[in-house]
């Protein structure tokens, strides 16, 4: 069968009816500007880095499994925890969200593609090459080792000689280029390319959260970019922005980093809130309860997210006024977050819940996210936080939000949209086994860490002495983490099995309400033969909600932009220039700049359609 054959190529199966959609060789993937292929590549690369970050976490947990262990030396340990954080934030969760943005947003708004398809390819390749650049540090003198937050002045050349921190500084700047380009692209796409009739307040929640996240990205990344540029100047040209001995201020870095860093948390979280807001109504067979409130609370969370950064700095000694204000703003965030949770529960209330795997993960998300939210309220209290900050209590908190929350939601999204992406259903039985295993392992890993923190175990420590009472709970956590790793293998097995011989997916396997379910799985490269005309928030659930046959075979096949290699070449130029900066080789840097200039010229003058 053609499907099996196509699925065997490149791991991204195609349905017979979709024909040539995902055909072609490696070159066709390198030059593609199709948002669906780009989304799939985002997913594959992000998942690869999720596995890398996960392996780093497992090594960390093995080292902490017993007191005073010598399994991993402190130098490697510090690289591992730095790269675990950096990888999971920048190379796993953000690009996994980007995978969903790419694949879904044009489908949900009834568009042919994103507004700037080549810029989209550019974002992908800058991310991929930037991620490889960052990880190449392992091969050249060691990976960054000053934490994902890179506090000055530990990052100065005096305390961190060598190239490790330079890899981090340059790598994050490269990744920032990718994120900002993608964010601008999605803002323009969502604002301009919606199907006729799809007013903002008829947009699917996931698209809404993509829009909000994109604004967060373009507003938050400049802050860290400024910080990184200053740090680069300190390290490369001997300036003293963060050098206290020369009048610099180490706290300047903390402010710049967290003005980015806290919105970044919502950059990681909001797409997941969007996914859950799609999955729950579908499987409750009931429209989302309080749609405008769910939208506004998402916007409010993003807005408030810019006013809470100093809650990462409660132990800095900013004084009672600052600590009172930032405690208050942080507590406020609990309100819109609570509103979302209540609306999800109200959506299920009175519904007819069909417990398929996506709903399992969505409900698991809510259950775990509540715990992460409550521990968040605990350290929104600046005074109480003086005991909790920089301990394992916070490690537990962030993992309840980012793993129990975001990763569970992303898996809900994967199980929900995998059929649309690949044309294959994932196995339900294995999916549920994956869910239960992951839920139990997750709690076994991270729940004891609340107690570890309260009992006095600081974070970012490569070992701990026997006799402090930390042994048993650390061992539990390590056992849990191994089980967690196993649960991910179960998922991978599910994916491989499904791509090989999974049940073919129909257009609408779940009874969804949004436009992506009107077209084939996987969709043809042009998505919709006729642009949909939308009359409702849930066009597939409301009679007359969609009055166009979007698959009308009589309609002509829409024109699509032609492939281009230039976005990849620009990305290569950027990473080359960064390599020049890393090795302080002017020649390499100039070569990189030359490649960028030539390829942008080529890009600009290459015709859009053949």
């Amino acid at each position, binding site marked *: 069968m053609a499907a099996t054959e196509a699925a065997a190529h490149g791991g991204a199966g195609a349905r017979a009816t979709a024909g040539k959609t995902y055909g072609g060789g490696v070159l066709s993937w390198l030059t593609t500007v199709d948002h669906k292929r780009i989304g799939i590549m985002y997913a594959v690369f992000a998942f690869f880095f999720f596995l890398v970050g996960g392996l780093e976490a497992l090594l960390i947990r093995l080292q902490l499994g017993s007191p005073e262990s010598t399994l991993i030396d402190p130098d490697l340990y510090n690289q591992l925890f730095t790269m675990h954080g950096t990888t999971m934030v920048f190379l796993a969760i953000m690009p996994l969200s980007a995978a969903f943005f790419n694949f879904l947003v044009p489908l949900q708004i009834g568009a042919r593609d994103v507004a700037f398809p080549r810029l989209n390819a550019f974002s992908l390749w800058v991310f991929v090459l930037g991620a490889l650049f960052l990880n190449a540090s392992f091969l050249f003198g060691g990976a960054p080792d000053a934490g994902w937050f890179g506090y000055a002045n530990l990052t100065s050349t005096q305390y961190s000689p060598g190239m490790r921190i330079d890899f981090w500084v340059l790598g994050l700047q490269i990744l920032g280029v990718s994120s900002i380009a993608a964010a601008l692209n999605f803002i323009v796409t969502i604002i301009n390319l919606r199907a006729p009739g799809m007013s903002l307040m008829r947009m699917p929640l996931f698209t809404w959260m993509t829009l909000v996240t994109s604004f967060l990205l373009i507003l938050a990344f400049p802050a860290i970019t400024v910080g990184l540029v200053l740090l680069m100047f300190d390290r490369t040209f001997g300036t003293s922005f963060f050098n206290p001995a020369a009048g610099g201020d180490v706290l300047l870095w903390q402010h710049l980093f967290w003005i980015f860093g806290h919105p970044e948390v919502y950059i990681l979280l909001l797409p997941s809130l969007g996914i859950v807001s799609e999955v729950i109504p579908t499987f409750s067979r009931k429209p989302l309860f*309080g749609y405008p409130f769910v939208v506004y609370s998402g916007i409010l969370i993003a807005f408030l997210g810019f006013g809470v950064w100093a809650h990462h700095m409660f132990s800095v000694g900013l004084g009672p006024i600052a600590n009172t204000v930032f405690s208050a703003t942080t507590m406020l965030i609990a309100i819109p977050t609570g509103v979302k949770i209540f609306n999800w529960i109200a959506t*299920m209330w009175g519904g007819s819940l069909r*417990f398929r795997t996506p709903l399992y993960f969505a409900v698991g998300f809510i259950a775990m996210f509540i715990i992460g939210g409550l521990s968040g309220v605990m350290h929104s209290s600046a005074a109480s936080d003086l005991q909790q900050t920089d301990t394992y209590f916070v490690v537990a908190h962030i993992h309840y939000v980012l793993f129990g929350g975001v990763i569970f939601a992303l898996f809900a999204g994967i199980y929900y949209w995998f059929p649309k992406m690949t044309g294959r259903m994932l196995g339900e039985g294995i999916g549920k086994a994956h869910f239960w295993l992951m839920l139990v392992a997750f709690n076994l890993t991270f729940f004891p860490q609340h107690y570890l923190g309260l009992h006095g175990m600081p974070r970012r420590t490569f070992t701990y002495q026997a006799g402090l009472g930390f042994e048993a709970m650390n061992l539990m956590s390590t056992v849990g983490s191994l089980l967690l790793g196993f649960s991910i293998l179960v998922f991978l097995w599910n994916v491989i099995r499904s791509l090989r011989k999974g049940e073919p997916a129909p257009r609408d396997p779940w009874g969804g309400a949004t436009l992506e379910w009107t077209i084939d799985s996987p969709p043809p490269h042009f998505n919709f033969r006729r642009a949909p005309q939308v009359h409702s928030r849930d066009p597939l659930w409301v009679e007359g909600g969609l009055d166009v046959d979007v698959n009308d075979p009589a309609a002509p096949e829409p024109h699509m932009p032609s492939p281009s290699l230039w976005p990849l070449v620009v990305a290569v130029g950027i990473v080359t220039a960064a390599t020049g900066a890393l090795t302080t080789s002017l020649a390499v840097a100039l070569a990189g700049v030359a490649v960028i200039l030539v390829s942008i010229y080529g890009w600009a003058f290459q015709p859009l359609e053949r």
Partner: protein
Amino acid sequence: MHLPPNERMTVTRHLRRVPAGVGRTLAVATIAVLLASCGGPFPQSALEPASDFAVLLDDLFRGIFFWAVIVFVLVEGALLVAIFRFRDREGRRRPRAVHGNTLLEISWTLAPALVLVLIAVPTFRAIWSVDRPTTDPDALVVEAIGHQWWWEFRYPELGVVTANEMHVPVGRTIDVRLTSADVIHSFWFPRAGGKRDVIPGRENHLWFRMDSTGVFYGQCAEFCGLSHALMKMEMVSETPEEFAAWVEAQRRPAFGTEPPAPPATSAEATDDADGDAAPGGGQESPPPAGAEADTGGVWLTPEQRRIVEAGQQAFLSSGCIACHRVAGTPAAAGVLGPDLTHVGSRRTIAAGILENTPENMAAWLRDPAAVKPGVLMPALDLDEETIRALTAWLDILE
């Protein structure tokens, strides 16, 4: 009209339904049992407060935790009810398409806001209590200086300098002034209260009053480089009398730094030589025949004395003095490393990592980086005899 179409679902296989809550209940129960079975003791726990500061934070935490548990039970409970009650069953009618309810939205906006007020009020009170400098005129000032990876403690009013082991009188306000010699650290004795960052280029404050005597454990809480995990410290909280005696002892010059004092009576010797710290078993009273008293008040045999003096010579000639100070020996005035004037009196060495025994000191001198990776102190490539002599000398610096 809303038509969640049934026919769309027929394509997927109808699967065995696992009750959604069972596994979760099991997981929670398992965790609770395991946690109960791995109880303490937790000598570094924030949950066992031993100062006014720590008690205040603990009360605050318990208050917040109480509300968190109530919210947890209510919201997770609502979630569980929804899962069980509204599960799809044979013959269940199509759900009514409800789009929202403004009254409900207002209530579940206001309800959390009320709970937050109940958390915010005590929070703000606590902030204004702990974030302002102490007003206690009798506060004892202690300067704590963070170094990679050890702590220096100075008592400017008392003329005492020590490292990694802080002594405080119980019941008296301790005004800790925090500065850093290199990168950012964070000062944290969980049982004495919350942490406060130690920031280069700034002075930070922290104050507390211990309410019980004993040894308390602390460690750096801000990642500060390679051996951050090994930057520990201890605090000995003692009665005012014990504290005064400690201060008195710390102010005395160290062994071998003054002209020999007249032989002490055996009673004095008993008081001063508190036991087992002398090298090769420094003697308690009565002094053995042929032994003579030295300024440390420790009785040594001539052989022991020879070793100790060799150690002192080695200390002065092996480069130690470039970084270490021993009060009373003008040559040993280094400031980069810990003040060793009374290193023999300390409970631990290497910033709370090793018990202060001759064997551990010897191991440290042999290769400091093997104990504390990245440490600034170099391995001095000393022969075993010199190490033994140095250990003996350092040990007697009570």
